[in-house]
C-alpha cells in the first residue's frame, strides 16, 4: 500500500476475479454435499474467502467481522445445531429442475438489471456522490475519529445501530426462550417448583 499507487491496479482485479471463482466453487460444493457436517465446514471456508475478498474491496472492517463471525462463530453454531438434528441430508433433492429454472430466471432478471449499473470502481457513480464525500471530508473533524466506518456506524447512523443491537439482543432472548432452561424442563416433564417465574 504505497501512497503512489493510487491509479487503477490490475493486480487487484486479478485477485478479485480469483477470489470470486473460489467463492462460486465453494458455494457449489456446499450445496451439493449431502453430509451437513462437511457442508458447514466448507461454509466456514466460503466465509474466509469472502473475508479476503472484503480486504481486496477495501472493506477492512467488514473483513474483520466476516472472519470473526462467518468463519468462527457461525460455523460453531451450525455444528452444534447439526449435532442436535442429525448429520445427513436424508432425502435427495427431488425434481431439481423446477428450483434450477426458478433461480436461473431470477438470476437472469438480476443480470439484466445490472446492465444499467455504473462500472465497478467508477468514482462518478451516484453511490459515491451522496453523503459519502461529506463523511470522508468532514468526518474526522466532526467526530474526532479517523476510522470513518466507526464514525458513521456510531455517530451519523447511531440510531440505526441502536436498532441493530436491539435486533441482536432480541434474537438472543428468542433462542433462550425456545431452547433455554424452561423449555428443556417442560420437555423432560418435570415441574419447575424449584424455580419461580421461569416459564416460557
Amino acid at each position, binding site marked *: 500500500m504505497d501512497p503512489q499507487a493510487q491509479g487503477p491496479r490490475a493486480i487487484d482485479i486479478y485477485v478479485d476475479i480469483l477470489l470470486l471463482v473460489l467463492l462460486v466453487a465453494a458455494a457449489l460444493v456446499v450445496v451439493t454435499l449431502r453430509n451437513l457436517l462437511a457442508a458447514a465446514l466448507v461454509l466456514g471456508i466460503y466465509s474466509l474467502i469472502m473475508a479476503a475478498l472484503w480486504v481486496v474491496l477495501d472493506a477492512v472492517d467488514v473483513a474483520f467481522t466476516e472472519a470473526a463471525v462467518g468463519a468462527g462463530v457461525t460455523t*460453531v453454531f451450525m455444528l452444534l445445531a447439526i449435532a442436535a438434528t442429525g448429520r445427513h441430508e436424508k432425502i435427495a433433492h427431488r425434481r431439481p429442475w423446477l428450483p434450477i429454472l426458478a433461480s436461473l430466471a431470477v438470476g437472469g432478471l438480476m443480470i439484466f438489471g445490472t446492465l444499467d449499473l455504473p462500472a465497478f470502481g467508477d468514482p462518478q457513480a451516484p453511490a459515491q456522490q451522496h453523503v459519502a464525500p461529506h463523511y470522508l471530508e468532514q468526518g474526522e473533524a466532526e467526530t474526532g475519529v479517523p476510522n470513518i466506518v466507526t464514525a458513521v456506524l456510531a455517530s451519523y447512523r447511531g440510531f440505526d445501530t441502536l436498532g441493530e443491537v436491539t435486533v441482536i439482543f432480541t*434474537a438472543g432472548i428468542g433462542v433462550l426462550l425456545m431452547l433455554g432452561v424452561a423449555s428443556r424442563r417442560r420437555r423432560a416433564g418435570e415441574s419447575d417448583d424449584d424455580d419461580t417465574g421461569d416459564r416460557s
Partner: protein
Amino acid sequence: MTEHLVLRVISKLLIPPILLFALYVQMHGDYGPGGGFQAGVIFAAGLVLYGLVFGTAAVRAVAPPRLLVVIACLGVLLYAGVGVASMIGGGAFLEYGALSADATHGNHVGIIIIEIGVGIAVAAVMTIIFSVLAEWR
C-alpha cells in the same frame, strides 16, 4: 473433548490472548479496523473455544446465563442511556455533541461509550446462544 491434552494446553495458552485482543479491538476501533461488533464476537469466540474444549459446564461457571442476560440488557441500555444523556445535555436523542462543551470531543466520548455498549451486548448474546445450543440434548 476433555481428554485431549494438546488441545487443552494450547487452548489455555490461546484464550487469554484472544480475550485481550477483543479488548484491544474494542478500544482501538476509532483508529483502525475494529469496534464493538467485532470485539464482542471475538470475546465470545474466546468463551466458545473454552466451552468446546472444557465443556459447557466450565462456561456456565464463568458466565452463568442469568448473568449474561443481565449483561446483554446492560449493553443495550448503556447505548440508549447515552442517547438519553445527550437529551439531558440539551441535544437530540443520540446527539453526542451535547455530552461535552466541545462538540467534537463530545462526539468522540459518545462513540467510545456506545461501542462499549455494543461490545458487551454482542458478546453476551453470542455466549448465550452458544451455551443454549451446546447444552441442548
